[in-house]
């Protein structure tokens, strides 16, 4: 991503730099607008006078007043311009439709009953812009018995079948962090929108793009849906054991002297369990696994599928369990003596499939991410800060993603944008940042 705000490097146009998007979305669609903007689109975010609800979501940027301090809002709304319009008022709905008339894409998160209530109907939108691409991102989609149900991120995680797979058998099912219902809905909405743009480029025809968060997450059930369909069985949460009664040494989560690593040292990929031994050698860890009987056993049998086969036989399983216990205890002792980063970097150099369990501070200093200049710093004058942003999901060498402007202050671009469509600023409501959000 180019550091366009502080670098003199000429900016290549993004693949969507001719596209204008009007975003009238709750948090479910913020990431979609952000992705389209990163690809070059001019994204105009329409907020109610009290501001988007995510402006008030913790955690906050210290030293900055509400409603400009919500970090989630600042993150996912960078690269957009911000306009305040009160769509509850007929006059401002008319301005909104003029704005839509100037746009290629409307990204909204209105459930069917909500569109009807505020009177922004499909007919009105198409009258304003006949070739409009209208992307609807909602929890449940626009049809079906739950179309008007209330939605929150955790609800999509539950109803998509994803949440039942996470957690421990004796605890609750667990959500995946950082709003993966919103995120996957937004990612799918972006893909659908660009596909619709390709069709419009070719034919001049707009269309409706529709995303349901419940559906957007479904593929993340991994194999669970196929197990149910083919074998009639349901995968459930296993606490990270994958449902195996016996732990296979070198597979799964291990404690280090400062945290955790995850390894897959018993498959066909990478260097397998030999990679664990090689990592021990490089780090100078001494143990008896290079000696008999262990060395022979490891060479012949330390393969996940072979072990699983052998353990299916109860007689063999008992003898195996004793061997695996010694090997497993040795591996656990080894990992416990070193740091997660050295195990990760030395292990990967031995082609061991190993990853360090990285928390935000680890990710922030990742040598790999930083070597690739992935994080981008931009100055946010409205908030008086230099902000460090995570980069985009891809590096498009011909048409790079760019971070061009910070997240808008509430109503920051109302006058500017309305002037562009020939409307006086007096036609829009003033922001009421201290009013209560709807």
């Amino acid at each position, binding site marked *: 991503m180019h550091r366009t705000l502080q670098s003199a490097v000429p900016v290549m146009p993004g693949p969507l730099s001719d596209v204008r998007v009007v975003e009238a979305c709750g948090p479910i669609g913020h990431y979609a607008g952000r992705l389209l903007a990163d690809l070059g689109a001019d994204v105009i975010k329409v907020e109610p006078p009290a501001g988007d609800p995510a402006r008030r979501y913790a955690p906050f940027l210290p030293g900055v007043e509400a409603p400009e301090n919500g970090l989630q809002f600042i993150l996912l709304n960078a690269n957009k311009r911000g306009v305040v319009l009160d769509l509850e008022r007929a006059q401002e709905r008319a301005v909104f439709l003029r704005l839509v008339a100037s746009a290629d894409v409307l990204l909204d998160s209105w459930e069917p009953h909500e569109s009807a209530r505020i009177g922004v109907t499909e007919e009105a939108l198409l009258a304003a812009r006949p070739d409009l691409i209208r992307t609807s991102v909602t929890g449940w989609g626009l049809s079906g018995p739950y179309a008007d149900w209330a939605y929150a991120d955790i609800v999509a995680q539950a109803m998509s079948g994803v*949440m039942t797979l996470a957690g421990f058998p004796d605890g609750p099912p667990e959500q995946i962090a950082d709003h993966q219902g919103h995120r996957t809905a937004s990612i799918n909405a972006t893909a659908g929108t660009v596909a619709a743009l390709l069709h419009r480029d070719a034919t001049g025809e707009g269309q409706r793009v529709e995303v349901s968060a419940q559906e957007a997450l479904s593929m993340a059930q991994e194999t669970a849906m196929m197990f149910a369909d083919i074998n009639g069985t349901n995968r459930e949460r296993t606490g990270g054991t994958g449902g195996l009664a016996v732990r296979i040494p070198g597979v799964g989560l291990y404690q280090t002297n400062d945290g955790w690593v995850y390894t897959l040292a018993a498959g066909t990929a990478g260097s397998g369990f030999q990679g664990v031994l090689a990592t021990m050698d490089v780090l100078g860890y001494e143990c008896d696994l290079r000696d008999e009987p262990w060395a022979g056993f490891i060479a012949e049998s330390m393969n996940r599928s072979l072990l699983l086969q052998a353990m299916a036989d109860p007689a063999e399983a008992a003898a195996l369990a004793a061997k695996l216990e010694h090997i497993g205890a040795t591996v656990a002792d080894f990992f416990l003596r070193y740091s997660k980063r050295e195990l990760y970097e030395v292990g990967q150099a031995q082609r061991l499939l190993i990853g360090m369990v990285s928390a935000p501070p680890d990710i922030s200093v990742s040598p790999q991410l930083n070597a690739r200049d992935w994080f981008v710093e931009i100055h946010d004058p409205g908030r008086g800060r230099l902000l460090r942003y995570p980069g985009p999901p891809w590096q498009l060498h011909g048409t790079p993603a760019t971070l061009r402007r910070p997240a808008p202050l509430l109503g920051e671009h109302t006058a500017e944008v309305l002037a562009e469509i020939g409307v006086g600023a007096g036609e829009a409501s003033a922001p009421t940042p201290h009013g209560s959000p709807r």
Partner: protein
Amino acid sequence: MTTNGSAPGQANGAARRALDGVKVLDLTWFGAGPIGTRSIANLGARVIRVETQRRPDGLRIAPPRPAGNASLNVGGYFNNFNAEKQSITIDLTTDRGHELGLELVRWADVFMTNMTARAVRQIGMTWDAVHAANPAIVALYQPMQGMTGPHAEYAGFGAVLSAVCGVNALSGFERNPPIGVGTNYPDYVVNPMHAVIALLAALRHRRRTGEGQLIDMSQLESSVAALSGPVFAWDNARVDYRREGNRVPYAAPHGAFRCADTPARPDRWLVLACLDDAQWEHCARACARPEWSSDPRFATLAERKRHEDALETLIAAWAAEQDGAEALARLQAAGVPAGLVLNASEVLADEHLRARGYFVYLDHAEAGRRAYDGSGFRLSKTPVELRRAAPLIGEHTWEIATEVLGLSGDEIGMLIAEQVLY
């Protein structure tokens, strides 16, 4: 033929699709790659997947599969992610096989692989080789950590990536080890569908300018981008992230609560979320606990967050006496975001997903009639459809070898005997 994302009666394989005419060479395997090229196929592109019997996709071997059936063609893991593609078997590590691979590169508009850098070198499909063969190609490489940098050669499956990108450290409860979320989460939507966005955007640029390009997609960068909130908060406000299970900072109550067991469905969990004070009032009313909304400990979001343990204890005690489905219906009728933690059988049977036709049932020569995930997005005029089940390994070798590669029957026979088309 079955449609997804269009009104019944529409399409049925006849409608125009957004990527009709686009040609894709698919050198992906496992999860993160194939799901992306499947989406491109369902948009109408012709996707040719090159496989080899010598080293088949691990998902062709993995469960679930019908009991006792060892065929490479019946695994649900592979088949769901590869609907509508064509499969040719070529051993790209042979000289002649590599030439044929480059011939497919010249044929293609789009190239994608998620193999490691090492595997890409082994099959001779580096960016330099691909670009030299077809300068106008859009090529997406999706190694775990990108094509440059000190960790460019690092390898792993989604479970390793989940640890490195933050899924494990951010999810679950602080009291438990960071086990992750029970799946290789980034493989299934985040990484493949981020890739689809990049491919579509690059195709748009190509149609307008004739220029192809390289897309260097690090699965790590893509995954952190989708989990960017906590790292952004750390970098800019030194917010020390605490794993709080099913809580979020801006809503309360927000969690999963166990309902009464029934013989048909033990382990029934209800999720609910109150994002504002009005939803909390509606929740108290729907639960027939009016005293909750008059309790000063719960009067505002800030108060509810301060007393969240007590709040959750009350709701858990209420939930334990409820039938899950009835509780859900009452909460939703009151406008409270709520749902049940469904298992996969329940997802397949969910009346809403069924009414919307999300899952698609396709006939497969060996696997029979099986469920496939539909598309995560729908297009009203150029429907996203699954027109065919997944290919058998090498099912289209003859068709592609004759039509695309221009080989004669004799040549094909020889190449099969030499285990080049293999």
